[in-house]
């Protein structure tokens, strides 16, 4: 708490923070290390693991023996597809609520949020049956729709809090100068809204990438994203540590990198603007 920071104090804090940080990060570091080991070396003692040789073998095997690229591609299609679809629906809605607020805008926003509070398991049965009857089980299109809907409230909320910060006077000035709705959106609002939209996009891709309820329930193989693919290692295959590590590393690496870029937006997005 103290602003006075003596060298000794700073040294203690530095050591403590690095130790805790390392311990929390360790599981991720460990699968990264194991992914470059042979199966035999991967189950040795920690010291044995660290002193054994390094190899790309597991990465090759994961690619060859499973349809890894298909699942990776599915994850990309599902997360990016559902995010873009959600943005297309949410941008006009958030724009309208932020700039033309009516008496019921607040209620509307709260109601949208409330749809997010419904536990997925409450609608598992009908969703499963609807998917079965419409032939949507294990299809990417069906899952894109579900992921869009479950993340739509968060997307609208995030965009709304960003749009709210754009000063309304600018729009009024533009209107005075004779700008119509179309040019207002195109030339004034869009450039100012791009950072907010980008953050929303990023956070939503992360959430959709890691979604592990509907992706596990509604896919089996063809449309299965990485969440489902990794889950298939829970059975005997889990004993193949090196391959599990290689598959996991590839599954989390892209999102880890995106996530580090979006730390700040994460707070705003996940607390619905309650903490900025």
């Amino acid at each position: 708490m103290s602003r006075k920071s003596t060298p000794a104090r700073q040294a203690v804090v530095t050591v403590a923070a690095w130790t805790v940080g390392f311990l929390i990060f360790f599981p991720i570091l460990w699968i990264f290390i194991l992914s470059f080991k042979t199966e035999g070396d991967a189950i040795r003692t920690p010291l044995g693991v660290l002193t054994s040789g390094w190899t790309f073998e597991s990465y090759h095997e994961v690619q060859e023996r499973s349809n890894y690229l298909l699942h990776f591609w599915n994850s990309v299609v599902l997360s990016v597809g559902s995010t873009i679809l959600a943005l297309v629906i949410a941008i006009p809605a958030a724009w309208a609520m932020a700039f033309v607020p009516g008496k019921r805008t607040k209620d509307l926003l709260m109601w949208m949020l409330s749809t997010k509070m419904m536990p997925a398991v409450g609608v598992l049965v009908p969703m499963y049956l609807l998917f079965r009857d419409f032939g949507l089980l294990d299809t990417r299109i069906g899952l894109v729709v579900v992921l869009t809907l479950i993340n739509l409230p968060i997307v609208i909320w995030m965009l709304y809090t960003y749009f709210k910060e754009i000063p309304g006077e600018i729009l009024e000035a533009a209107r005075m100068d004779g700008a119509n709705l179309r040019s207002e959106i195109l030339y004034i609002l869009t450039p100012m809204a791009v950072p907010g939209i980008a953050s929303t996009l990023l956070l939503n891709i992360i959430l959709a990438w890691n979604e592990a309820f509907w992706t596990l329930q509604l896919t089996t193989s063809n449309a299965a994203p990485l969440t489902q693919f990794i889950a298939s290692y829970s059975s005997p295959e889990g004993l193949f540590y090196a391959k599990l590590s290689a598959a996991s590393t590839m599954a989390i690496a892209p999102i880890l990198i995106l996530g580090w870029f979006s730390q700040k937006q994460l707070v705003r997005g996940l607390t619905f603007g309650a903490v900025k």
Partner: protein
Amino acid sequence: MATEHSRTAARLMVSPAVILLFLWMIVPLGMTIYFSFLRYNLLMPGMESWAGFDNYYYFITQPAFKSALVNTLLLVAGVLLITVFGGIALALLLDQPFRGQGIVRVMVIAPFFVMPTVSALVWKNMFMNPVNGIFAHISKSLGFQPFDFLSHAPLASIILIVAWSWLPFATLILLTALQSLDREQMEAAEMDGANWLNRFIYLTLPHLTRSITVVILIQTIFLLSVFAEILVTTNGGPGTASTNLPFLVYAQSLLNFDVGGGSAGGIIAVILANIVAVFLMRMIGKNLES
């Protein structure tokens, strides 16, 4: 300054989102409610009949329900305890100036981005496995018997795994809140001779109250629906030792094909979540006014 014209446009722009969310909320939920009153098993198609409250009665009176309810609450409470206290401690630590702050921050946040199936499997195999896991290696090197976490303490192990995923979330939000603390006030208190503990209790903690509430409420919403971690580690077992409400509903409806019973369970889960949601909505609603 909105004109009639722009109001109409605004309504048009909001309506797709409203209609979609409305359908999403009303259609499946309506179906769940309807199914919950039917005797409906997927193995006996065409045999559906009205069941009244029978499904609710059977769902609630089965022995698994009580343990699932207790497990659900223990899971939420356990993870909350670890993440809130751990998060406050971590946020206080990371708020201090030290070398490599940026890197440590990134390391601490990382687990949040790991997909649930990966984190569960990594903990299950690489750490908690009684033969090859790191914990087993450590206890063997210290001369102890390795402990089979997922067979002997399944729920506690799952709590640990889920807490690892959520600790970064709590830390990040509390750290963000901590950084908006009034430094001058803090220094004034320090000059007046307030010690660390007093400053923490009377200045820091009140400042964090709001964020802590938000963390608790949002996590509760997500923690009530923990599913993937259970599916890939213990499959709800041994017995029903690590079955929570979502997992019980899943097992009943998609493994036992009892649509009616599963739907009744789903509605019970919705009611449970709504109790929490009411409080969360009030918090966020207050914020919207200010």
